[in-house]
């Protein structure tokens, strides 16, 4: 039994009949065709699937597509405006905040949320804000530097 949902993803309306159990992350990857959002676990720990739902960070693996009906979602693909990179993307690039890149989309969107509520966070505040996002490559240090640079760089 499928239900119709309508989600605005990065400004584009996507309408589809979906199973109620379809996870938002699968909706984004398989229905909307936006594979930038990653899946890193099945217990909601890792945060690789973090997207913005009506402007706030959520783990898309722990959200059903039907819960996003009528809402607006921003994925990593929606961070940049045209070809211009978002300050977070620019900062992660500048500060070597990524290695394999798999955690990076979710990490940047979680950081977006940190900066939304705290535009000038300390290193400790950034670390606490990112405790729900796991990275195995970087040891987090350059991620923290990236978020600090983005905070200094301007709008979030």
């Amino acid at each position, binding site marked *: 039994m499928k239900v119709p949902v309508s989600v605005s993803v990065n400004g584009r309306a996507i309408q589809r009949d979906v*199973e109620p*159990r*379809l996870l938002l992350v699968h909706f984004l*990857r398989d229905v909307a065709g*936006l*594979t*930038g*959002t*990653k*899946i*890193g*676990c*099945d*217990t909601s*720990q*890792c945060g*690789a699937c973090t997207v913005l739902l009506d402007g706030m960070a959520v783990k898309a693996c722990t959200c059903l597509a039907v819960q996003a009906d009528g809402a607006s979602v921003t*994925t*990593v*693909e929606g*961070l*940049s405006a045209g070809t211009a*990179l978002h300050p977070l*993307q620019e900062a*992660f*690039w*500048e500060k*070597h905040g*990524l*290695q*394999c*890149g*798999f*955690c*990076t*989309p979710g990490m*940047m969107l979680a950081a977006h949320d940190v900066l939304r509520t705290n535009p000038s966070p300390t*290193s*400790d505040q*950034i*670390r*606490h804000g*990112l*405790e729900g*996002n*796991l*990275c*195995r*490559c*970087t*040891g*987090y*240090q*350059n*991620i*923290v530097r990236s978020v600090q640079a983005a905070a200094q760089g301007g709008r979030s």
Partner: protein
Amino acid sequence: MTVTMKPARIFGSGIRRREDPRLITGTARYTDDITLPGMVHAAVLRSPHAHARIARLDTQRATGAPGVVAVFTGADVEGALNPIPCAWLLPNAELKIAQYRALAKDVVRYVGDAVAVVVAESPYQAADALDLIDVDYEPMPATVDPEKAAQKNAPQLHAEIPGNVAFHWTLAGGDVDAAFKSADVIIRDRIHQQRLIPTAMETRGAVAQFVPATGELTLWNTTQNPHIVRFIMSLVTGVPEDRLRVVAPEVGGGFGSKIAQIQGDFITTFCSMKLGRPVKWQESRSENYVSTTHGRDHVQDIELAATKDGRVTALRATVWAGMGAYLSTAAPGIPTILHGLMLSGPYTIPAVKEDVYGVYTNTTPVEAYRGAGRPEATFMLERMMDLLADKIGVDPVEVRRRNLIPPFENGHNVVTGLTYDSGNYEGALSKALNHVKYDALRAEQKAAREKGRYVGIGVSVYVEICGLGPSQVAGAIGFQGGLWESAIVRFHPSGKVNVFIGASPHGQGEETTFAQIVSDELGVGVNDVKVVHGDTDNTPMGWGTYGSRTTAVGGAALAVATRKIKEKAKLLAGHLLEAAVEDIDYADGRFFVKGFPDRHKTIQDIALMANVAWNLPQGMEAGLEATSFYDPPNFVYPFGAHVAVVEVDAETGRVDLKRYVAVDDCGPQINPVIVEGQVHGGVVQGIGQALWEEAVYDESGQLLTGSLADYAIPRADLLPDLEVLSTVTPSPHHPLGVKGIGEAGTIASTCTVYNAVIDALEPFKVSSLRMPLTPERVWRAIHAKGA
């Protein structure tokens, strides 16, 4: 007068990475991002028992489920797939290899052992149908501890291998017995190198596309070594290598867990061969935890003999290394070659003996995991050094200093048979101690103790073997492949460059650093060089990215290839400039007549002329391209010294890591920012082992830490900023003097943090504690001894 500033040298410059634009925009494609027309999805049914007979297996209900295209079991695979091979046939070790099937038949031997596969139109339908497969298991006793599994009366895993011992490997150098007989001091300890789960953020997966009309197979695979996959896949499936294309797409981390070929890879390929359609399989994290290879899992008994003034005269150890239920691709070499040979470390230890038993247990197969054998060796040494220091009442740094090999630039033989290339262990140690102001730190510790605060300082000195390695050695030690690396450097008519490499980076940054090498050698703009890797159809043969070898060996191949180009370019420049080649000099991308800098050709001029071939000297072929297959004459031996400062809360047992200092020496650094990043990541993984991580099996072989909810990998809020410094001691045999750095951080950090915690607990006389040093373990140790 104008002053021309010479631009900073590109080699040594922390430029930002070529890899990043596609990664930060979400446009990079990892294996699970690949969709092909007609593609179907595989889900694997895995044994819930650690050891059981399959009494009944009925797939009928699953076959009829919505969207299901096919269901296959071990019976279907028999005859179609050869057993999964072990590719490290350790000689002189009584190696006994158990038959390892892609889908188990009759008996399952670990939780996660693959039993059946459902192929369906969608992943949800495939997962639904798994529940409809009826399996009756007859559970049998299981054994999970490597020491216990090797004892009499332990449950037997493989009928053809009574005793469960996969191999018994020994290393001996010098006269260990004499040293122990005449020792003033003997230290003993038992160490558990707990099993770890590598947990790359991307799980493993594969997309297999077999085309029946042509017999060709394309396999997209989360691998660290696509050419090895091609080789092994051809042996197992019968698809010849010339028709087998393996592509490593973007790969989200490996750390050793994507070296081996595991059941899922072969199952996916088999399904595609049977169905003639593309098939995708991607692990969930829970599946990854039982299906993808684990790391470490040693039980070690160590003895150290020393003089009364702390000079080590011998080290003797027995190790039981858990292998899991089957031998993984490179598994036998990890607790032996990559471990035992480093048993004298950076010290002048004249006698060493080790017995290593590789033991089958009803657990997930064990394979390389960052450091792979070397953390286990360094930990042994550094623990023994601290225990020795405690025994004779000497500062732990001083004890180490009494044993360090003095600095050397070009070769030092050690008792295990290796020749280290270059080292300055005292230099790294001094730098670390000066940076933390060690004496003042000890004074602060004393003052803190008087106030009832338990501060601990851990110091470690390490050297490790990496940059695998001389292929002749590979053959001698049973590795069923070579360990050279390849590079093709190709100049296009417009002067842009493509580099094709056999290595397969997955986050380490070689698309950037290798462009820096070419730019440095030939003056090409670094943004005019694109590095191509990962696809066996368009890259030369290579042996993979692991063991900190890509820059040490692959980078060497690249340097040699660019120098071949330089030689040819010089010849052509001479010809075009009508000067003898001896009169041609090179600087910054220009070939010019000595003394006449205006008479020059740029490398781009040469590239165009070589490609159009209008005017080449007699006997010169067209094109500006060179290939190198570089076989290193030795391994490389990075080294360093680390310091950790911790504070333990005696009431909760919680360890707070206050400071961590790493001084590492990987020779000249192509890109210091990337080097630092590798140290950050490596150190944090090692800290994870010391404080938080453990793969726990219960007695019946159930993996209790079966997901990220129970297996605690490091989080951002648990770590301080690391202080990363370096010394630079070139390798005498590498064309660029460069050593590896990918694993060094992990090799040093576990023991550094561990030693710091034991040091903090000194007032409680705790000398040994099992890792991870969770609050509960630390608290119990404090309270067992009394406050």
